[in-house]
């Protein structure tokens, strides 16, 4: 995979992007306020042409007090992948929505809200996806407790 040149290209358009060496594919971490701008360029610039949002999810780094949002992008034009991620504070996890760029983000983001509690700014229809609207808490967070339904192994 021509991974390294791509990271350099991304850093040229977004100097704040940091390379993540611990991922198994070209991966960058950006400050959350630069996320939407970078995503827009990655989709529209024909040198990247990342037209498919393959996957989006969130990871709860509760000991650091962060939630990491991860986007897996794929370009059907170039056959290239890139992973973009950003970190937001756990107590106010507001992330700009990307559903204006990729329609599927609308539901992938609803899943992340439902299970992880990530709030998406400008999302047209942010609500629970799998769970009931009056569900308390966000089950995929590491500190979620439910006496009746959750059992932890030691």
């Amino acid at each position, binding site marked *: 995979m021509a991974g390294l040149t791509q990271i350099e290209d991304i850093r040229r358009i977004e100097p704040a992007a940091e390379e993540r060496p611990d*991922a198994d594919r070209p991966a960058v971490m950006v400050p959350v306020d630069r996320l939407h701008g970078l995503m827009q360029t990655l989709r529209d610039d024909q040198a990247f042409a990342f*037209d498919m949002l393959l996957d989006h999810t969130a990871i709860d780094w509760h000991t650091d007090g962060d939630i990491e949002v991860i986007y897996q992008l794929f370009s059907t034009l170039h056959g290239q992948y890139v992973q973009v991620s950003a970190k937001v504070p756990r107590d106010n996890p507001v992330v700009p929505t990307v559903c204006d760029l990729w329609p599927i983000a609308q539901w992938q983001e609803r*899943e992340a809200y439902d299970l992880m509690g990530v709030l998406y700014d400008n999302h047209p229809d942010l*609500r*629970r*996806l*799998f*769970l009931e609207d009056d569900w308390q808490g966000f089950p995929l967070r590491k500190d979620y407790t439910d006496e009746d339904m959750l059992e932890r192994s030691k």
Partner: protein
Amino acid sequence: MTVTVHTLHDRISPPTGADSSLQTQEYLINMGPQHPIAHGSLRIILRMDGETIREVIPVPGFVHRGLEKMGENLTSLQFIHLTDRMDYLSALMNNWAVSKAVEKAAGIEVTQRAQYIRTIMAELMRLQSHALWWGVLGMDLGAFTAFLYGFREREVIGKILEETIGARLTMNYIIPGGVMSDLHPDFVRQTKEVLPYMKKMIDEYDVLLSGNVILQERLRNIGILSGKDAIGYGCTGPVLRASGVPWDLRKTEPYGVYDKVDFDVPVGSVGDNWDRYYVRMEEMRQSIRIIEQLIDNIPEGDIQTVKYGGRIKIPAGTYYDHLETARGVLGVTLVGDGTDKPYRIHLRSPNFNNLWVVTKLAVGWRIADIIAIQSTLDLVIPDIDR
């Protein structure tokens, strides 16, 4: 900065009057969660204007089991046994996707024999899955006979898989490092017998259903999905390929022994229901072709490189790997922290991403057409909910 969170209740009430005339009013129809077209438990709320669909609101979650949460407390070898509960018709490919991600993260090599067995099994599974889909499509559109024929062929393949694997539906067979058990001594002979039979049966499917006038009327030029929309809505698998985008991971990033076989990737030209139908019919023929090339050449050797019941430590880092199930790309995001249990595991299920395109496809069509559209999207609901 505040972010507004909605509820389903404000989403569906109150229905607004249609502005065009005084005589009509928009109204809501609730389909499911128990509905034959749901193929599981999926609730769909339709906002209708007369017979015409104005808006589709899918409400999933009736079979949500929290697999991702469970995965955080299970080792990868234990987690394999949950994956076949997602898309039960692609059970082996689900096993394989998680195994593949774990193997990549932990740097485990797999023997050639195991790779051959995995590929043959996955293609048999795809054949079985598509045969069932064909039957169910017939039933959804009112041809119950097709359902019985589809199940007849599924049974034949199911018997072969059962002899080696020991299960009929929720199959656990592919594990990190190889496969669980060696092939049944009769496997090769039986598979070779069943391939010519399947070929004949797929031709029979064409005679029985494909040329039928009612089926053609209900599939052709209905629910047209452009390639651009299919990509934007994250569609993969036959749904994407029917819209003319030739992306098949078996071809573009060969895993298993797909690089050793010769097969074609069928693509559609219009992107309507019919293309989605016929792409799957062709895929069945291609699956037979793949198995034919492999079945005589299974090399001797070990089937497993990791001691069963052993601990596989996932090094710290974020890993993503995917493969092509019968319905599209199943991606596994694995976050390791150096222990044998993943810190976080996320499954990008093909059906979750294929479902939402219905909110665009069905708008403007009649209520009967959403049945055909849903049927050609070939959704398995437990895979959406996970």
